[in-house]
C-alpha cells in the first residue's frame, strides 16, 4: 500500500479508508452517470478534526480531493478523477444543536435533509428546502449545490436558510462563516452566501448552521388537471399575478403523468390530461381556505378537467406521491434518464415548452417534463438507452439545444442541479471570458492550488476528457454533414 494511503489509515483507522478497486465502485459517479471515474481512495472521517487532518495531509502531498455527501448530485460534482481522494462525509451525521427559541440548528454535513426535519418535527419545526431527493441527500451537499425543491417558491433556496458554517479550507486551515444570529457579520462580507453553491470547490463544510421554520397551522394541496399545457401555465400566471404565494406550484406533463400512473408511484392522476398542476397552500386555517377557493376559481376559469383538494395528510401524501416519484417512474421508459435543469422567466414558460417539444421531435428523443412552475425552473427529462451511442449523442445534443433555448429566453442553464462536469460546456452560453475570469479569481481566493474538487464548475483546458468530448459529439449530431 502506498505511503499516503498508510498515513490516511493511521489518521482515521483502517475501516475509514477504502482503496480496493471493487470497494471504490460505489464512488465512481453520482446521479449523472454519463461521467464515471474511480477515485484513488475514499476516506470516511467522522469529525472536523479528522477532515482537517486528512486535508492537511493531502495538501502537503499535493493530492487533489473531492468532498462528497450522498452522491445524488445530477451534474457530476462529487465524481473524482483517478488521482483524487474522495472525502465522504456520510459518517458525520449528527444534529449538534437545536435552538427552539432562536429557531436554528447546527448540523454535521452528512445529516440527511429529511432526517433534520424528522428530528425537529415534535417541536413544531421543519427545515424548509426540500429537494425531491431529500430522503437521501445531505445538508452538506445541499449547501454546496444551493439546492432547491418544490417548496422553494415560497421559502427560498438553501442559501436563504444557511446562517453559517465551519469550513476546512483546501490547505487544512479552519474558517468560521456567519453566526446563528445572521449570516453576515457586521462589517464583513457575506462569505456564507458565496460559499453556498460553490459545488465543493471552495473547501469542505464540516458544520452547518441552518434556520428552522415553524410548521404552518393548515396545509392544503390542490390538483388541477388540464386539457392543454397552456391552460396549466395560464393558471400559474393567474395565481402569481393575483399576488398569491403558494408554498409550491408544480407541473407534470402528459408523458410524465402516464409514466407515474403506470409505476409504483401511482397517485391517481388522470392519464388523459395534458398537464397536472399541483398547488400547495399553507398558513392560518381561514387564510388557506380563502386562498384555496381563489386557486380553485383560477383552475375552473382555465378549463380544469378535474380539480381535487387534499385537506388531510394522507390525501396530501397521495397527491405528492406522483410528483416526488416522477423521476423514479421514468425508469420505466428506458434504461437511462438525462435529467435537465434550466430556467426561463416565468412569463415565458409556455414558449419554452413549445420549443422543448420541437427540439425533442427534431432529435427523435423521448422527452418528459416535470417542473417548478412557480420559479420557471424546468426539468425536461430525456429517457434513453446509454448502450446506444447514437441515441446517447442525440440525447446530449437535444439537451444542449434545450439549455441554449433557456438562455435565449433570458434564463439560466441551471436552477438547482449545478454545473459540475455536466455543464462545463454550457456555462459559456451565459458567461463570457471576463465573467469566467472573475469567477476563477474568486475560486482561487478560497482554493489557490485548485486541488479541492478540480475540473468542476468553470470550463478549463484541464476539464476531464469525457466531458471534453461532448462538444464534438454535439457538433456531429447537429451538423452530420460537416462532422467534427
Amino acid at each position, binding site marked *: 500500500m502506498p505511503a499516503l494511503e498508510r498515513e490516511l489509515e493511521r489518521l482515521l483507522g483502517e475501516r475509514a479508508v477504502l482503496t480496493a478497486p471493487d470497494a471504490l465502485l460505489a464512488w465512481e459517479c453520482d446521479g449523472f452517470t454519463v461521467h464515471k471515474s474511480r477515485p484513488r481512495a475514499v476516506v470516511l472521517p467522522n469529525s472536523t478534526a479528522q477532515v482537517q487532518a486528512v486535508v492537511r495531509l493531502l495538501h502537503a502531498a499535493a493530492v487533489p480531493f473531492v468532498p462528497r455527501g450522498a452522491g445524488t448530485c445530477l451534474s457530476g460534482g462529487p465524481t473524482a478523477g483517478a488521482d483524487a481522494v474522495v472525502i465522504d462525509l456520510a459518517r458525520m451525521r449528527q444534529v449538534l444543536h437545536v435552538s427552539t427559541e432562536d429557531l436554528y440548528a447546527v448540523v454535521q454535513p452528512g445529516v440527511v435533509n429529511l432526517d433534520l426535519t424528522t428530528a425537529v418535527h415534535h417541536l413544531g419545526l421543519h427545515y424548509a428546502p426540500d429537494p425531491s431527493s431529500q430522503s437521501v441527500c445531505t445538508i452538506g451537499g445541499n449547501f454546496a449545490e*444551493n439546492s432547491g425543491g418544490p417548496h422553494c417558491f415560497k421559502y427560498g433556496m438553501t442559501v436563504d436558510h444557511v446562517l453559517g458554517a465551519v469550513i476546512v479550507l483546501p490547505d487544512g486551515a479552519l474558517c468560521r462563516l456567519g453566526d446563528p*444570529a445572521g449570516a453576515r457579520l457586521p462589517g464583513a462580507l457575506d462569505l456564507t452566501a458565496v460559499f453556498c453553491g*460553490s459545488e465543493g470547490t471552495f473547501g469542505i463544510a464540516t458544520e452547518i448552521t441552518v434556520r428552522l421554520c415553524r410548521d404552518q397551522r393548515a396545509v392544503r394541496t390542490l390538483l388541477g388537471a388540464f386539457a392543454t399545457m397552456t391552460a396549466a401555465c395560464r393558471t400559474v400566471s393567474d395565481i402569481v399575478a393575483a399576488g398569491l404565494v403558494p408554498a409550491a406550484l408544480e407541473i407534470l406533463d402528459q408523458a410524465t403523468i402516464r409514466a407515474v400512473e403506470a409505476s409504483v408511484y401511482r397517485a391517481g392522476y388522470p392519464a388523459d390530461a395534458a398537464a397536472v398542476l399541483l398547488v400547495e397552500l399553507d398558513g392560518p386555517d381561514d387564510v388557506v381556505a380563502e386562498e384555496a377557493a381563489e386557486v380553485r376559481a383560477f383552475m375552473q376559469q382555465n378549463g380544469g378537467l378535474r380539480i381535487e383538494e387534499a385537506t388531510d395528510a394522507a390525501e396530501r401524501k397521495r397527491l405528492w406521491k406522483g410528483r416526488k416519484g416522477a423521476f423514479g417512474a421514468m425508469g420505466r421508459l428506458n434504461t437511462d434518464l438525462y435529467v435537465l435543469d434550466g430556467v426561463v*422567466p416565468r412569463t415565458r414558460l409556455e414558449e419554452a415548452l413549445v420549443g422543448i417539444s420541437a427540439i425533442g421531435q427534431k432529435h427523435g428523443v423521448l422527452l418528459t417534463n416535470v417542473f417548478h412552475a412557480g420559479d420557471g425552473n424546468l426539468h425536461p427529462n430525456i429517457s434513453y438507452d446509454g448502450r446506444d451511442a447514437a441515441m446517447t449523442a442525440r440525447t446530449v445534443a437535444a439537451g444542449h439545444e434545450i439549455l441554449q433555448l433557456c438562455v435565449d429566453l433570458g434564463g*439560466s442553464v441551471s436552477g438547482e442541479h449545478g454545473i459540475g462536469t455536466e*455543464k462545463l460546456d454550457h456555462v459559456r452560453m451565459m458567461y463570457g471570458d471576463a465573467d469566467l475570469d472573475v469567477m476563477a479569481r474568486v475560486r*482561487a481566493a478560497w482554493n489557490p492550488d485548485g486541488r479541492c474538487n478540480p475540473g468542476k464548475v468553470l470550463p478549463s483546458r484541464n476539464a476531464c476528457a469525457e466531458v471534453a468530448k461532448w462538444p464534438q459529439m454535439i457538433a456531429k449530431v447537429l451538423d452530420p454533414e460537416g462532422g467534427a
Partner: protein
Amino acid sequence: MSSIAGTHVRPRDAAAVAEVLRARLGRVRLHGSGSRQQRLEPVPGALALDLTGLATIDRLDAPDQTCSVDCGVTRAQLDDALRPHRLELPCPGDGTLGGLFASDPIGAAAPGGQSPRSLLLGMDALLADGTPFKSGARVVKSVAGFDVHKLLVGSEGRLFVATRLHLRLKPLPRARVAFANQALDREAALRLLQQLRELPHGLQSLQLLRVAGGGGGWNVRGAIAGRANFVAATLRALSLQESDAHPVLHLEAPAGGEVLAGLALPSALPRLLAGLPTDAPFLWHGGGRFETTLPVANATDRALAALASAGGHARIVAAAIGRRGLGTPIDAGHRSIADRLKHALDPHDVLC
C-alpha cells in the same frame, strides 16, 4: 460626464464609469446618494465616483416579478415604479440601490424575512481597472457559476462597482398594518416580542426600540401583512396598536458619541441590554441586527469587550475618524479569505 471640484465625477452610464476607472486616477471612493459616507473612514485624496447618474430602470417584468436597475436608481424611484404593478422590493433601506446592497445596513426586517442577499439575482459590474463582467442571472433561480454578485452585499464599495442590479420583487400584500406598542417596560416588551416571533405567518417587520429621552420606555413596532381579516385578527389577538409612524431604520450618534451595530439572537437580548447603559438608545431589527448609541468611546469599548467575551459580533459604525469600523474580532480564517478576495478582485487597492 460632469466634474465637480476636480475630485468628484458623476458619469452618466456604465461605459463612462469604466472610462474613469481605466484612467487610473488613484484611489476611488464609490458614492451612491451619500447617506452613509459619514460612517466610513475618509480617504484623503480619493476620487469621489458618484454613481447617481446611472439612474435608469432598465427592465421591469411585472408578471415575472423581476427587474433590472442601474445602481444609481433610488429606492424611492423604484418604489414609485413598482406601486402601479402592486409589487415591492421587500427589504428595508433607502438611498440608491447600489448603496443599499453594498452596505446592507439593516438585513432582514423580520425573523426569516427577505434581506438584500436573497433579493439580488445578478449584476453587471466593473472591476477597479474598468473591466466589465457579469454574475448571476435575471431569473429568480440560477445556480450557474459562482455567485460573485453575492459579494456585493456588505462590500461597501471595496471590491467592484456594481453598475446594474437584477432584483427579485414580491407582490404587495393585500393588507398591511403597521403597529407600535409604546412605553412598555423591558419585560413586557420582550414578552410581546416573543409572542410576535411565534407567529408562523404574516410578520413583515419587527423592531424593539428605546429612543433617546424616552424615559427608558420600550417600543415594539412592526407590520402585519396578509389578507385583511387575518391582519385584523392578529392585531386584536396580540393587542397591537395601529400606528402610522415610519419605521426607524437607524440611530443617530449623539454629539461626541458613537453608534455600535451588531448581531443579536432574541435569546441574547436580555443579556445584551444588561451590559449597556440603562438609558442607551437601542434598536433591534427582527432579522437580528441591532444598533445602539453610546455617549463616549469608553462606554463603547466596554460594550464591545462584553460582546466579544459572549461570542457576539458588533462594530462601530459612527464615531470620530480613526474609530469607525473597529469592532469585535472576526475569525482569522474569514479575514484571510476576505483579504484574498480583495486582492484577487482589486489587486492595487484602488477602491476604498
